[in-house]
């Protein structure tokens, strides 16, 4: 039998039916649901008189537009001030009740961002197919699972049939060789990758991330990398299963137990690309070359290392790129600036499905400990990824470190990553954000987003502008 990539193996083990035109019916093991992309899917089921195929394969939690202030959160869904958001969250509660789907509602400590909650509960397991009506579902690929975002019609399709009609992607390997420098994190790695291959570089591919620079990452770090595969255009990001994966999953509430655990671990050993597997494309990046990254423009590919000058439109040869750069310069208000350290920050956001896990918060806390946020800053908020992350952080006293430094400690949710709730940027404001998208208006109408790692965001909060965290911590 010919050698297979990890993606090939996952695809083959979920193939229900191959069709002549290259499309196939693929079985889905886990569907995560949230309030924004599911209401129309449930409505579709009702209109057609259909029932979910297998309710136990779904897990739901509201995240996108839940408020994050204590005041609004104290009475659960009733406390949501925005009436439109409230209807959406209530609709998720009602739909889950009606169809018998497990939901961590706003009063449940397990509530949080779907992509934090799934892995945290052990609902996400190696070897699974995982879908969700959210493009950052690629996060779960960190577990050697085949995971990707889908639209609402497909959410309905999976609920009704447990399957998806899919066409197989091509295989890409992104190998990060060598050892990462101190204070260079998974976020810097993935931003550097996107900078290298571009925001459409992975379109049509499933990207497997490998090499020592990836293998040395914790599961939190691996999730950060896979999370942003979609920002390189790839719906699927993957990392092979190893001891780090198995150790993370072990003992989680929904992980298999006893004899099933042993059986599962044995099966998971095969969740690696075969030695001779062929990839359609291979990209190699040297870990040592990666420095702390900051995005300067309105696409994640508009990214540079902190010590590089901001690239100028007039230096670009490709006319489409030139125009894109000129538009981004104008939107971001970069005229008269050469380095990103020249940008005065208005807000700092530490959170999102990319960087709101306990490890992210520990690193941010380490940087701000004993320091104070810059007086020029309007706001700095820390939004944990789930109620359990929040509880763990509080157990470790991280919230006290943040609050003493002048950062706000919030309730879990997607928050300022996409600003569907009250947490948003004002027009023209610059934000150091640990989220995943710097699109125009993403964090608020006219808002200017700079994507960074938690350590870089924390250092920027103290300095009031971007600094190399590696230099910063020495002082």
């Amino acid at each position, binding site marked *: 039998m010919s050698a297979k990539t990890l993606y090939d193996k996952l695809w083959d083990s979920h193939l229900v039916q191959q069709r002549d035109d290259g499309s196939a019916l693929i079985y889905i093991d886990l569907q995560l649901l949230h309030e924004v992309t599911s209401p129309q899917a449930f409505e579709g089921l009702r209109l057609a008189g259909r029932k979910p195929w297998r309710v136990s394969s779904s897990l739901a939690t509201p995240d996108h537009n839940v408020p994050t202030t204590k005041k609004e959160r104290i009475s659960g869904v009733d406390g949501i001030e925005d009436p439109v958001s409230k209807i959406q969250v209530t609709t998720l509660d009602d739909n889950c009740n009606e169809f018998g789907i497990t939901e961590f509602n706003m009063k449940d400590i397990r509530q949080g961002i779907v992509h934090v909650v799934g892995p945290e509960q052990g609902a996400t397991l190696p070897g699974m197919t995982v879908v969700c009506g959210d493009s950052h579902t690629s996060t779960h690929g960190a577990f050697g699972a085949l995971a990707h975002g*889908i639209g609402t*019609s497909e959410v309905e399709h999976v609920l009704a049939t447990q399957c998806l009609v899919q066409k197989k992607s091509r295989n890409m390997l992104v190998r990060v060789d060598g050892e990462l420098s101190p204070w260079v994190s998974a976020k810097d790695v993935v931003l550097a990758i996107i900078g290298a291959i571009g*925001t459409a570089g992975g379109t049509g591919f499933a990207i497997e991330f490998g090499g020592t620079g990836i293998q040395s990452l914790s599961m939190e770090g691996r999730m950060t990398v896979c999370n942003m595969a979609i920002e390189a255009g790839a719906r699927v990001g993957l990392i092979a299963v190893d001891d780090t994966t198995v150790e993370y999953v072990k003992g989680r509430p929904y992980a298999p137990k006893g004899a099933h655990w042993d059986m599962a671990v044995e099966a998971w050993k095969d969740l690696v690309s075969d030695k001779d597997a062929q990839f359609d494309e291979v990209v190699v990046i040297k870990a040592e070359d990666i420095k702390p990254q900051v995005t300067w423009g309105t696409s994640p590919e508009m990214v540079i290392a902190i010590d590089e000058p901001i690239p100028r439109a007039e230096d670009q040869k490709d006319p489409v790129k030139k125009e894109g750069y000129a538009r981004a310069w104008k939107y971001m208000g970069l005229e008269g600036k050469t380095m990103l350290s020249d940008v005065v920050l208005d807000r700092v956001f530490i959170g999102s499905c990319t960087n709101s896990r306990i490890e992210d918060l520990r690193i941010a806390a380490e940087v701000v400990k004993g320091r104070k946020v810059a007086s020029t800053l309007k706001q700095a908020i820390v939004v944990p990824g789930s109620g359990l992350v929040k509880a763990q952080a509080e157990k470790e006293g991280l919230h006290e470190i943040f609050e003493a430094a002048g950062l706000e400690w919030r309730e879990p949710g997607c928050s300022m990553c996409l600003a569907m709730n009250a947490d948003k940027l004002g027009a023209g404001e610059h934000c150091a954000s640990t989220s995943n998208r710097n699109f125009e208006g993403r964090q608020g109408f006219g808002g200017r987003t700079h994507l960074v790692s938690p350590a870089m965001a924390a250092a920027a909060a103290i300095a009031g502008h971007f600094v190399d965290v590696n230099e910063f911590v020495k002082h």
Partner: protein
Amino acid sequence: MRPFTKHTGLAAPLDLANVDTDMIIPKQFLKSIKRTGFGKNLFDELRYEDEGQPDQECDGRPIRKDFVLNQDRYKGASVLLARQNFGCGSSREHAPWALDDYGFRSIIAPSFADIFYNNCFKNGLLPIVLQAEEVDQLFAEVALREGAQVIVDLENQTVTSPSGATFEFNVDNFRKHCLLNGLDDIGLTLQQDAAIRRYEEKRMNDAPWLFLPRGQ
């Protein structure tokens, strides 16, 4: 789903690469629990000068006059000409819902983001990938003459430019079949229920832990 067979319509050129789904329909409009009504907020931040709110009347809002859809000559456009990587970003199906609700039937670009491309087919909206030079030619021809129409023929997989040039495009057979006949693909998949059950039985044997009640 509304079938798509052949469509002749006014083409509007959106000359911008990497148009993301946040541009197509900003987040504040995603709070709706319906599939309809997004057309008035399509490209909201590109189209209007102020920040739009859900349930707001859009008629009196200040518009950005230079935006393509605000120009009189492109009123009633039903074919959108776009640049590379159109629809990148989030998986929100509200993006094709908004394009459809506005009145677009087809989008022509040199490349699309995967999830967006896929979502279009579920909504009777036909995304077409043409060569970059072909898209350039369409942009040029449409700019040349007001009211220039483009013909999109799914059956024959061709796009005909205002001057009569014909370009061929690829589309998966299954998607084409569903779109031509306006078929609900959930119904089609459910016809394969025996195959799905067979797969489940095998999988239950190979990986029983995936089928246990949670936490056991």
